[in-house]
């Protein structure tokens, strides 16, 4: 159930700038959510190289080794939207991406991971870095793919809550006595 433009296959046919990827095989949970194994994100303002750079930059700022690029792409999506509505943000992001390239002696994305990190680490605290970080700390963890990855179950209401679905299923510690924690109300009892 990706509520993103990410999986809208028709984007693949559009002429806009598109970031694409394939879900890694290891992320089984995601492939259940995703209608297809490939994802695509159409950028409205930023160019593809900038989009790819921002995705990789986010991977360095919030590194989760097995979290799929498709989730990181959601951060790029939000950064792109911010750039589209505010020229200042667009400039900040494009300039920052260029600065990463300069720092890497030409092509930051082509550098190895250690080199990439060394360059971006030096930018910590500047506006470009903070913009990515501030966006990512929300976007990266606020979507159903991330929830599936981290094991968080999201909306409980539509499932009727956890009263009958494991709110107290922890069994590796002793259960508290009834005077500290009584049994749950049941309509039958």
């Amino acid at each position, binding site marked *: 159930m990706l509520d993103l433009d990410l999986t809208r296959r028709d984007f693949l046919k559009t002429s806009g700038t598109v970031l694409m990827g394939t879900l890694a095989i290891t992320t089984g949970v995601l492939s259940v959510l995703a209608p297809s194994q490939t994802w695509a994100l159409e950028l409205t303002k930023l160019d593809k190289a900038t989009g790819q750079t921002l995705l990789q930059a986010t991977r360095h*700022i*919030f*590194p*989760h080794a097995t979290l799929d690029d498709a989730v990181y792409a959601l951060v790029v999506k939000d950064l792109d939207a911010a750039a589209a509505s505010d020229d200042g943000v667009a400039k900040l992001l494009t300039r920052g991406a260029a600065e990463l390239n300069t720092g890497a002696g030409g092509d930051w994305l082509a550098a190895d991971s250690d080199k990439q990190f060394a360059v971006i680490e030096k930018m*910590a605290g500047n506006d470009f870095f903070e913009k990515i*970080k501030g966006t990512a*700390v*929300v976007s*990266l*963890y*606020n979507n159903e793919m*991330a*929830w599936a990855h*981290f*094991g*968080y*179950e*999201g*909306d*409980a*209401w*539509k499932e*009727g*809550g*956890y*009263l009958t*679905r*494991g*709110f*107290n*299923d*922890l069994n*590796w*510690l*002793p*259960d*508290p006595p009834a*005077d*500290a*924690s*009584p*049994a*749950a*109300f049941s309509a039958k009892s």
Partner: protein
Amino acid sequence: MAKYDLDDDGVVVIVGSGAGGGTLANELCQKGIQVVLLEAGGHESNDSFVNNEWGSFGQISWLDSRSSSGSWRVGKDFNGLPAWICKTVGGSTTHWAGASLRIQDHEFRVKTEYGDIEGANLLDWPITLKDLEPYYDKAEDKMGVTRTNGIPGLPGNNNFKVMHAGATKLGYKNCHIGRMAINSKPRDGRAHCLQLGFCFQGCKSGAKWSTLVAEIPKAEATGKLDLRPKSHVLKIEQDKTGKVSGVIYADSDGNQHMQKARAVCVAGNSIESPRLLLNSENNQSPNGLANSSGQVGKNYMRHMTGSVYAAFEKPVHMWRGTTMAGIITDESGNDTKRGFVGGYEMETLALGLPFMAAFLDPGAWGHDFTRKMDEYSHMAGMWLVGEDMPQESNAVSLHAENKDQHGMPTPNVHFDDHPNDIAMREHAYKQGSAVYDAAGAKENYLVPPYPSTHNLGTCRMSANAKDGVCNAHGQTHDISNLFISDGSQFTTGAAENPTLTIVTLAIRQADYIAKQMSEKAI
């Protein structure tokens, strides 16, 4: 629902529909008193609430511009969001977790108990626990607080199991599922808790008490309540005799109206209440209304807070079930051998993944941060909440330049931790970690305070008019028909979550206002 004229000067106007204002409105309406309840926020419902942390945050939080200053970490991490409270019908009771504890006897007279503490503006309350007990009884019954009035406790969730196992091993004697204003069984026309775990997001099942689902509908049923959502009060007017005569408020289109009043009760929570009094300055009250003491906005308290989350080998799934049911009260007394005065409570707390990312270590990035986030499903968590010291310099004031959407000066919240607050927090972190270590934690994460959820003390009660803003009934010392009806009244903060006491004071205040009205004193 009643509809009163703007010119009707027989009504009691209440500003804010949260714990204080919403309860007071119902209590007055039950006595047949005509009430206009002005609420800045919109009217949501169990149906419109969402099980989504950021979605809900955008729906019910107070997001008007605020600023902060001082050395507290919240000022650095969340500069424009010093407080995490609500702008919606029901106020922060839509958001609250439901923990409902009485203030302890000695906490009503801390100046006497603790003596002089450098830098602290301590004062005894002008009331005692004994004065409040009959009203606490009423409040607990009204709110359906579990483990009182024969109401069974809630069943403990996974997060509580971890707390209880650790507390027991550590030798704590008082760990239980807590006293919660959440229905453990159907009561008062509302359902029982379904263990959704979205208590902070409005509670879609209606099991949690709030003024939105309990007090306001009952007040409406009397035919005496005129509730006006999206009505932001900007100024309280004072007449030639010195009494307040009404309020000016902006409606949803920004149009301003003057509502006349026989009495005005301010319950906008401890940032907005003093802001409104300060913004209501006039020739008679050049420093703001009811401010002859100079204490309006001062002595701002927010409780000593912090959280401990711990990662375990095996899964916990702490988000399942009630957000905050489970407490250890062993540290809540005043035992100065620990190196500080006052005490603190340890209460289970779970955040969803989105909020965990925002609050675990604000501003952090890199492997150390993501390594902790990777433990999310194996984490248990607790909140530490204790008495903080009132300091005159911790204050809500009007910003010199910034104005909000209605042209009203924005509030600035200045706060520095008192050394006692810091010593208490360090102790609480140590004990919280010890609880989880005893339960087998791999690692503990000491999480700094969130934006303030318990905002207190900015119009405090005092026996003597020079020490505070209002008397033992919340009636301002300076103006007999102007009342403070929310947590701003607190003389000191005590260790306990404040809402039960706010509701208790509102019930008591309603009796007093009714009496004063019948005696024509106001």
